């Protein structure tokens, strides 16, 4: 999920996790599991490594999270870990003041950028998914001349880093007179998403039994009807999987927004503003900590709520690098 670009490295359909795949007899599986569980518990090294890594991975976030609720003077004076030592002395003060300042303070005003992030993200998710669904359908189910090599060409476009496209695109936007508006950001995100989206959705489309589509055709349905009545309902999980990817990618993106939206408060999303604050107000941790969590919270909630689809998409080889 970097600002790198579209290149999805490898396209592989990994084997589905065999969690539910019933292998052998139930009893055999259970005894196998029991044996493993026993082995696992009896290996203190494994547990030790797991615990150490788990703690290492969590502490940085917890540190900044606790900091975001501490008063500015405390943040400057002492480390966040002193909070635990002061737990029973009553010296700790926690408040939402940092969030108040970051969101509504005249010099930060993150609430405005929060709106921008939402306005940028929604169309940038809806448009590419729709366009890609139609294209993927045509590549999978409509027989037209040049279909195969066109599909290979779209597939190959995934390796183009978006950096390669930026200056000419920006020039084109300036010529048309839409530079620095939401339209350029929507358009850019939508186009950059297409190769991966078409490839991924095409994979899922191919899995639909052709008898279903044939039957609908025999009944006299046109492609548009088949697309909406037969294919779409079956693709909901795939759409959800790619939708989350695209959502996280757009919301967390810095490069596209920086280049096409510029630094203007009217268009720039949270990432641009928070990155800018990190440079210009690098020592103001009361604002930075709150600002970071304001920009993190939405993707985190979406991610936790829809993790199941995300993992499925990941395992289907849809990784935007």
């Amino acid at each position, binding site marked *: *999920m970097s*600002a*790198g670009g579209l290149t999805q*490295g*490898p396209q592989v359909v990994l084997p*589905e*996790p065999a969690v539910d795949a019933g292998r*052998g007899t139930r009893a055999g599986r259970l005894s*196998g599991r029991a044996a493993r569980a026993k082995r696992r518990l009896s*290996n203190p090294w494994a547990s030790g*490594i*797991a615990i150490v*890594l*788990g703690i290492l*991975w*969590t502490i*940085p*976030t917890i540190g900044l999270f606790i900091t975001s609720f501490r008063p500015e003077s405390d943040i400057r004076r*002492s*480390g966040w*870990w002193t909070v635990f030592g002061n737990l029973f002395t009553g010296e700790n003060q926690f408040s939402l003041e940092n969030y108040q300042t970051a969101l509504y303070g005249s010099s930060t005003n993150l609430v405005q950028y929060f*709106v*921008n992030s939402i306005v940028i993200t*929604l*169309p940038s998710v*809806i*448009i590419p998914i729709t366009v890609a669904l*139609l294209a993927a359908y*045509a590549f999978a189910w*409509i*027989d037209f*001349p040049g279909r195969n090599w066109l599909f290979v060409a*779209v597939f190959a*476009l995934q*390796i183009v*880093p978006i950096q*390669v496209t930026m*200056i000419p695109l920006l020039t084109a936007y300036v010529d048309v007179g*839409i530079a620095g508006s*939401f339209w350029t950001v*929507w*358009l850019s995100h939508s*186009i950059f998403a297409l*190769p991966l989206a078409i490839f991924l959705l095409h994979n899922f489309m191919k899995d639909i039994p052709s008898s279903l589509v044939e039957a609908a055709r025999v009944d006299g349905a046109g*492609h*548009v009807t088949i697309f909406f009545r037969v294919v779409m309902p079956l693709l909901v999980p795939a759409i959800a999987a790619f939708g989350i990817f695209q959502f996280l990618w757009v919301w*967390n993106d*810095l490069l596209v927004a*920086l280049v096409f939206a510029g630094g203007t408060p*009217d268009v720039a999303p949270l990432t641009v503003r*928070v*990155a800018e604050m*990190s440079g210009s107000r690098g020592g103001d*941790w009361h604002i930075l900590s709150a600002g970071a969590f304001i*920009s*993190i919270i939405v993707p*985190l909630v979406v991610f936790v709520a829809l993790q199941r689809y995300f993992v499925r998409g*990941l*395992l289907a080889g849809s990784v935007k*690098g």
Partner: protein
Amino acid sequence: MDWLLEAGSPAQKFGVMAVAILLFVVVMGAILFAVDRPKRVPRWVVAVGFVGPALLGLAFGLVYPGLVTIKNSFFDRSGAEFVGFDNYVTAFTNEQFLIVLRNTAIWVLVAPVLSTLIGLVYAVVVDRSRFERFAKALIFLPMAISMVGASIIWRFVYEFKPDQPGVQQTGLLNQLLVWLGLPPQQFLINQPWNTVFLIVILIWIQSGFAMTLLSAAIKAIPDDITEAARLDGLHGLGMFRYITVPSIRPALVVVLTTIAITTLKVFDIVRTTTAGQFGTSVVANEFYTQSFRQNNAGLGAALAVVLFILVIPIIVYNVRQLRLAEEVR
């Protein structure tokens, strides 16, 4: 109609957004309605209706600008004069850019290997343990956090306060040094180790990705193979070395190459932490600096093309490995 381009208030912005989505729905609806006449419309027209919008977008947004950039990389900073390979010569000989290339090489060598290793070890040790779901979530969550957010989280870990009496360190890492009796360090400024501390941020983000894919691959190893190995006396590290790793080799290649490509294009982390100062710049960051800060379009274009060329061998390797894996099957 100015508000469509210069929306100011939140209401106007949401208004523009609604207009955009509505416009899109209307256009797509019109196209589909036009081609939805079974038997009266030739098949190729239907195909154009379905594929046309996507191909148009790709041609305008990827193919055409890509070609223009390749052309620009042979022109000077304003794009007026043809300079041959001068931009590339600069990128590969100038001292400043040699540091950029060296950093990029370090990133690509270190980040994928360590992320994959950590992801693999973690996937193995938590596999089928009682807390597997929770344990995985801990490593997994950084994937939802933007690189900007992650950079700020880690900048706080690296925070430095001058080593004076009465001044307490507020960055965790420096406090650890102080507790150990060592002087605090400016982790993001002291060369050449600052690049390593930036790489740590990417490893922190990417390990969850590696763990997820590798964990799925490990679970797909047939039980009879591990059972047979166990009967032959393999345990612990032996099992890991001779059964687990060879069985998931294709997945390992996928994970390594994917993270390598992400690493090549890493921009946000460098931009947010040091903005490429103190000898930490990488190709993707230098592209941005040259193109949009130094206004050197030619050099920026050359750097973008270098990025493009660096990605290709990784993908070729990946595709060849996949072919091999399929033949074995």
